[in-house]
C-alpha cells in the first residue's frame, strides 16, 4: 500500500466542501434568525397624533432588526463550530488541527457573506409587504435603483460586521474549549468590571468606538481584516495542542 503525500490546500478544500454539506444546520438557523428579525422589524415604533379634524397614525418599520439578529447568529455560529461535537465530526476523516481551523474559517467567511448580503435585503421584504398592505411609505432608505452606491455600501458593511462577529465568536469558542473557566472570566471582564468605571476595562465600549465610529469603508475593512486575522491566529495557537476523540 503506497503512501499518499497530501497537500494542506487539498485537504482544506475537501474539508471545506465536507463542512458545507455537514453543517447545513447553520443555514437553517440563519434563515430562522432573519425571519425573527423581519418579524420584529415590522413594528419598531408607532403612534397616533392629531386634532379633532385630522388624525395621523404612524408606524415605523426597520430592516435593522434582521441585521442585528444576523450578527447575533454569526457570533453564536462562531462559538458553535468550535464545540467538541463539530470537532470530532471533522476528525472522523482526514484532518489536522490547522486544516480544521482553516476550513472552518473559510466556511464562516462564506456563511458570513451570505448572511451579510441577505440581512440588508430583508428591509426590501419589509417594504414590499408594507406596500401590499396599502400603507404609504414616506421616508425610506434608498434602494438599489435610487442609490446604488449606498445600497452596496450597506451590504458591504453588513458583510464585514458579520465576519467580525463570527470571528469574535470563534475565538471565544476556542477559549471555552481550552477551559470552561474562561466563561466566568469573560463575563466579569466584559460586563461586570466596566460597571465600576475602572479605567481600561471598557473593552466593548472601546470596540464600539474603534469599529462603529469609523467613517471610511476602506479603513473599516482594513481594521476588521486585521482584527479577524489576529483572532484566527489566537484560535489556532491556543488549540493547537487540543486532543480529539478521546
Amino acid at each position, binding site marked *: *500500500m*503506497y*503512501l*499518499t*503525500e*497530501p497537500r*494542506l490546500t487539498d*485537504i482544506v478544500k*475537501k474539508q471545506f*466542501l*465536507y463542512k458545507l*454539506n*455537514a*453543517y*447545513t*444546520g447553520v443555514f437553517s438557523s440563519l434563515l430562522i434568525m432573519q425571519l425573527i428579525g423581519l418579524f420584529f422589524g415590522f413594528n419598531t415604533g408607532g403612534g397616533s397624533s392629531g386634532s379633532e379634524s385630522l388624525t395621523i397614525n404612524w408606524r415605523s418599520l426597520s430592516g435593522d432588526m434582521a441585521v442585528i439578529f444576523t450578527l447575533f447568529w454569526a457570533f453564536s455560529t462562531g462559538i458553535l463550530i468550535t464545540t467538541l*461535537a463539530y470537532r*470530532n*465530526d471533522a*476528525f*472522523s*476523516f*482526514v*484532518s*489536522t*488541527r*490547522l*486544516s480544521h481551523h482553516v476550513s472552518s474559517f473559510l466556511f464562516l467567511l462564506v456563511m458570513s457573506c451570505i448572511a451579510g448580503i441577505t440581512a440588508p435585503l430583508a428591509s426590501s421584504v419589509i417594504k414590499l409587504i408594507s406596500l401590499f398592505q396599502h400603507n404609504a411609505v414616506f421616508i425610506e432608505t434608498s434602494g438599489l435603483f435610487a442609490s446604488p452606491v449606498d445600497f452596496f455600501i450597506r451590504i458591504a458593511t453588513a458583510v464585514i460586521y458579520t465576519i467580525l462577529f463570527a470571528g469574535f465568536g470563534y475565538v471565544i469558542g476556542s477559549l471555552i474549549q481550552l477551559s470552561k473557566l474562561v466563561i466566568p472570566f469573560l463575563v466579569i471582564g466584559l460586563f461586570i468590571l466596566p460597571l465600576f468605571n475602572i479605567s481600561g476595562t471598557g473593552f466593548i465600549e472601546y470596540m464600539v468606538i474603534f469599529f462603529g465610529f469609523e467613517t471610511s469603508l476602506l479603513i473599516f475593512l482594513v481594521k476588521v481584516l486585521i482584527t479577524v486575522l489576529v483572532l484566527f491566529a489566537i484560535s489556532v495557537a491556543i488549540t*493547537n*495542542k487540543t*486532543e*480529539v*476523540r*478521546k
Partner: protein
Amino acid sequence: MTVIKFNNVTKSYRTHSVLDHMDFTIEEGVLTGVIGRNGVGKSTLMKISAGYIQATSGEVQVFSENPFNSLKVSANSILVDDTMSFSDKLSLSDILKEANRFYLNWDAQLAQRLFDYFSFHPDVRHKHLSKGKKSTFNAIIGIASHCPLTIFDEPTTGMDTAVRKDFYRALLKDYIANPRTILLSSHHLEEIEDLLEDILLIHDGKIRFHGPITDLQEMLVKLVGKKVNVLAHTSKRTIFGSQVNGAYSEVLVENKFTADEKIRLSEEGIKMIPVSANDAYVALTTGAKGGIDDVFNRTATD
C-alpha cells in the same frame, strides 16, 4: 519499513499514568492484535498512533513523523472506534461519498457491497443506528478506506455473533487482497487469534509480550500431575497460574525445560500440556491479586 515506533513513551493524566515508558515497533504489512485487559492503555496507544492525542513524554513516530498534527499520518491512517461521529445532516450514503473524497485508496465498490450485504438503508442517519449497526458501519469505512495504517479499536462492540464472524472474515479477505499494516484490539483473543500474525500484549501500561502468536503459545506450558511431584518441579519457577483438583494439580510455568528435565517429568508422570494463546494471555495478565476466588476467600476469613 517501520510504520509505528514508540520510544520510551509515557502518557499520563493528572491522577494516573496509562502508558509507562513503552517501547515497540510495528513493521509494515503486519496484522497485529493489540491485546490487554480493560483499561490497560490499548485505546490510548491507538489514539496516540493516529495523532488524536499526544504522548506526555517519549518519542512517537508513524511513517517517520510525529503523528500529532501530521497531515501525512492523518491521510494515510484511519482509526475505527466508537468515538467516530458524523454530522446528523449526512445520510449514511452521504458519509460514504465523503469518505471516498478523503481517502485516496477508497474502494467504493467494496464499500457499497458491504453496505448492501449488512442491509443498511442509505437514508438513515448515523446517530440513529443501533450500537451494533454503528460498529458495523464504522468497520465498513475502516475496511474500504484501504489506509496504509488501519487501526480498529474494539471494532466488534455490540455486533452479534454472525456479524462479528462476517466482519473478521471480511477483514481477513481484504487484508490478503490488499496487504497493509493493521492494528486490531480486542478483549477476546480467542475470537481473533486465527486472524493475527503478531500480538502486542499490554499489561499495566507496559508491553508484556510482542511477537508472533505462535511464540506466545509456546511461551508457557501447563504441568499436570500429582501435587507433590509438580511442586518439586515448580518451586523455583515463576508460576503464572495454578489449580488444584484433589490430589492432582495443574501449574502454568514458562516453557523452559531442558531435555533432562523433560525426561524426569515424564518419569514422574507429569504431563506437559501446550497452552492456547488465550490461556497464556490470561495467565500473563493476571495481576498479583490472584484470581477472583481470592476476593471471596478473603471475605470469608475476615
